[in-house]
């Protein structure tokens, strides 16, 4: 069976005045039908650049230098900009962190949904498009769609705007919805509503979701599988329960440990010392070596290979090598 989406050995570079940023350094992952994959990781670790390459939305100075992005077997990495235009919005849609920047402030929201339909659904009549737009507005949980159709984004609350962004993204029944920090700019009570909505919609319209987030609570809430990024690489991928309960990589362990727990009250939090590596000059060995509590000589010299832990659980760490068994814990 071929996978819905399969990313293989993807490598992305960004040229800047000061040198080349190795933003994504050989990542591989897949996404199955109706699955939700969460990507987590430190700021600057390459999460947004990874999904932007899938969308063909890399900045002008950015380039895929290696690897493939297979959507049902077709390699998007080889697509021209024109081919990508027909993929975006119809096969794959993306929503961004700040709902205000993804909406046009000068256009009523109904029209913004209709515009997407005009681009991808030439078979629809004007009336059908309007009807579909109204249906989408109510699908994302906004009441009184007729009245809302004619409103401008600034007349809506932040949470409602993000619902509209989702409606626009879902207009053409995409196979894959990519959400880059969709709730980071929202309050927790609104975040809970949006997560609920995404879960609900996934069941109703059977899309697959890739969600990028910093928040491990959000991961636990919505993800089926999780990919952890660090220094431009995927350091661990696992089912959500394995990631939380059978954590394999020292960075993931550190991340989970730094969340305050009731038992931490009155004592220090378990912080990860130091800062993430500079992707202009990534370290030659393990990217986490400078901050890891388990660093060995080999870690600084050679990049660890992607190793299988159990089932589909993978991690990139020398501790998983047979020869390091005794050092694991």
């Amino acid at each position, binding site marked *: 069976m071929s996978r819905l989406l399969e990313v293989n050995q993807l490598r992305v570079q960004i040229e800047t005045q000061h040198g080349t940023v190795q933003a994504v350094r050989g990542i591989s992952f897949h996404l199955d039908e109706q699955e939700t994959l969460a990507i987590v990781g*430190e*700021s600057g670790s390459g999460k947004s650049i990874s999904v932007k390459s899938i969308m063909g939305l890399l900045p002008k100075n950015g380039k895929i230098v290696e690897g493939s992005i297979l959507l049902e077997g077709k390699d998007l990495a080889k697509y021209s900009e024109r081919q990508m235009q027909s993929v975006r919005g119809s096969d794959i849609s993306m929503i961004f962190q700040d709902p205000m920047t993804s909406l046009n402030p000068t256009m009523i929201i109904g029209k913004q949904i209709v515009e997407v339909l005009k681009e991808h659904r030439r078979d629809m009549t004007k009336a059908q498009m309007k009807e579909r737009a109204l249906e989408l507005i109510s699908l994302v949980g906004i009441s009184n769609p007729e009245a809302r159709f004619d409103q401008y984004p600034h007349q809506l*609350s*932040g*949470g*409602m705007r993000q619902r509209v962004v989702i409606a626009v993204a879902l207009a053409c029944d995409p196979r894959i919805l990519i959400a880059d920090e969709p709730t980071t700019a929202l*309050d*927790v*009570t*609104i*975040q*809970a*509503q949006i*997560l*609920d909505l995404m879960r609900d919609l996934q069941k109703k319209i059977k899309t697959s979701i890739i969600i990028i987030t*910093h*928040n*491990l*609570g*959000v*991961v*636990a*809430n919505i*993800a089926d599988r999780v990919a952890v990024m660090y220094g431009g690489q995927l350091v661990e991928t696992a089912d*959500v*329960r394995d990631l*939380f309960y059978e954590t394999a990589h020292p960075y993931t362990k*550190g*991340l*989970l440990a*730094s*969340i*305050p727990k009731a038992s*931490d*009250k009155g004592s*220090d*939090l*378990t*912080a*990860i*010392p130091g*800062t*993430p590596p500079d992707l202009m000059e990534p370290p030659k060995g393990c990217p986490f070596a400078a901050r890891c509590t388990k660093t060995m000589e080999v870690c600084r010299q050679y990049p660890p290979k992607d190793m299988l832990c159990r089932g589909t659980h993978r991690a990139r760490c020398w501790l998983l090598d047979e020869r390091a068994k005794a050092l694991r814990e």
Partner: protein
Amino acid sequence: MMSAEKKPLLEVKHLKKYFPVGKNQTLKAVRDISLNLYKGETLGLVGESGCGKSTFGRTVIQLYEPTEGTIIYEGREINNSLSKAERHEFTRKMQMIFQDPYASLNPRMKVMDIIAEGMDAHGVYKGQERKKKVIELLETVGLSEEHANRFPHEFSGGQRQRVGIARALAVDPEFIICDEPISALDVSIQAQVINLLKELQKKRDLTYLFIAHDLSMVKHISDRIGVMYLGSMVELTDSETLFDDPVHPYTQALLSAIPIPDPDVEKSRNRIMLEGSLPDPIRLSEGCLFAGRCPYAEDLCRKNTPEMKEVRPGHFAACHKAK
């Protein structure tokens, strides 16, 4: 815990801060808040964005002139009758750390001068003494001497926040308002900054007002927590009680909305889902401000504004039905 007979370091009484907006309209960013802060304690302040947390902090620290109400620090009321020197002394004792470590540091100044700015204004140290003090402060916050001659853009977010903390500490303050000091940082770096703040508090007997929207961090660092909604304080109690036994319906909804980083717990939880979003703060009706979203609202709530009352010793809530 803070005992009742202890004298407060800071007393805020009926504080109001209104902003004029548009034509003849006012935005009541802070509506009648009273509270005490005791020496050495951390009071957390939580609530949704726009509920007035920053405005409250900025008014307390005299960055904004209060519309009404009094602020008493160590028994002295801070108002216009103070001499210039007394006012100066207050601004030294109270410092603020800001949310955005990027925006709050002058990009054209070297870290040395950023940190020394307050010392210079208060004329505390000069020359070699000044340099020595800056290096000492850098070390206190986990940076080092070689960082002194760098510019803010050469630092990571966590490091910039450390510079902001060093700047606040430079004038030996007693009371620091931390306005979302970790919101812009990665989870792994957040823990570093929180540990640093706690360590400094112990060493220097500092008092904190800690504003944040990440409730798990607030719970960790705070002795007591206040919950704000649309400019009002709706619940105030010690942090364990707030999490274990919240009595205000808004607090209950807020706590239930936080996603818990544990998939098994998260999947079996029952959430209180709030309908709608915050009403427009300019057009607010009479009665309880939460009535439009509250699952328990009744006629009384829409007519009368609930006052803050002590439901249990040290546990305050503003709800007609809170028991």
